[in-house]
């Protein structure tokens, strides 16, 4: 008990939060550049989700924004405009929201209680990943076409039809990553006794 409270207070420190944000950002950027040859297949989204799941919404949003501040400007495929970058950052925050929402659901409670139904939990993680990725793709496809047709509705429809091959690749890969990597990290961290401020409260 004492040990849990001590760990939680360490995680409350601003310096610890900055360090965690930096580590997750570095990990996401490293994997993004490693996977640069495979369009729209990235572990980044899963990492933002995991960061928010363990350390809360603010840290998750911090990771999402930090990643895109670097990846949007230092990218072999080209530099994003500020407008597009803002859509990408907001879209990336959907994964942080998904992580926090799942943390507050029965899934986190069952994991702490030591459930063995990993396959079912894996399905939940995969479906939440699909939902968040769909929202991200819908928003960013819209953002890539905004102000081009003269109607926001047409911008949305055109963007999402022309962008659909990339959306399908993104959503399929994220379902796999969210169903495998995310629960594996969550279960491993729980077994190792990671208690975040949210767990303690």
């Amino acid at each position: 008990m004492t040990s849990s409270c001590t760990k939680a207070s360490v995680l409350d420190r601003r310096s610890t939060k900055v360090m965690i944000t930096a580590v997750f950002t570095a990990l996401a950027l490293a994997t993004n550049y490693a996977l640069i040859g495979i369009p729209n297949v990235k572990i980044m989204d899963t990492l933002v989700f995991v960061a928010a799941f363990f350390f809360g919404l603010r840290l998750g949003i911090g990771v999402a924004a930090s990643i895109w501040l670097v990846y949007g400007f230092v990218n072999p495929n080209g530099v994003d405009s500020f407008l597009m970058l803002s859509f990408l950052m907001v879209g990336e925050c959907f994964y942080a929201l998904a992580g926090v929402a799942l943390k507050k659901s029965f899934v986190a409670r069952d994991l702490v209680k030591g459930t063995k139904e990993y396959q079912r939990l894996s399905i939940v993680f995969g479906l939440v990943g699909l939902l968040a990725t769909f929202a991200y793709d819908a928003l960013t496809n819209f953002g890539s076409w905004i102000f081009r047709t003269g109607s926001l509705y047409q911008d949305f429809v055109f963007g999402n039809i022309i962008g659909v091959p990339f959306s399908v690749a993104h959503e399929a890969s994220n379902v796999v990553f969210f169903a495998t990597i995310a629960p594996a990290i969550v279960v491993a961290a729980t077994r190792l006794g990671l208690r975040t401020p949210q767990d303690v409260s």
Partner: protein
Amino acid sequence: MGLSIVSEHKVFFAILFLVGAGIVAFQAGAYYYYQRSSSACPSPCQGSVVAVETLINYGNSTSHWINKTDVPSDWNFYQLTASIAIVQATYYGPPTSEHLITGINGVQSNQQYFWSLWAICEKSNAWIATNVGADAIHFTTYHTLAWYYQATNSQDSSTWNPPVSGASKVTICG
């Protein structure tokens, strides 16, 4: 105690599966529509030929026009480019099924320069940077196209210069 998490949270799982199925159906429909629209070719499609003009602008004041009058109408612009130039490309399989052009006639894309794809929008008689790759361009809408080797300054195509200096440019063909 002995209940599985599915029976404990039936409503949650039902909603999650329904939303997931809805997303899959939506994307499958959009993908079908995209495939159908990007594989369209003039009627009659098979056996007919069209004339297509292609500009290759190397970005160093060197450019040349290639006028080909016997392009099979079921070809796409990648096939045409490969028939008139030496093309280096990376192929991405399904679902994108597209080639990323990395070099034309020995001029390679790099960190600073890349090959952008343009077409003449016949309605407005102006150049437009296409929003799809060469594989998705058939010769129903566009008959004058261009490859332009230009500096990578932004992914926002509205800021790019057209392949013919001083020519007009639009961001939407309509």
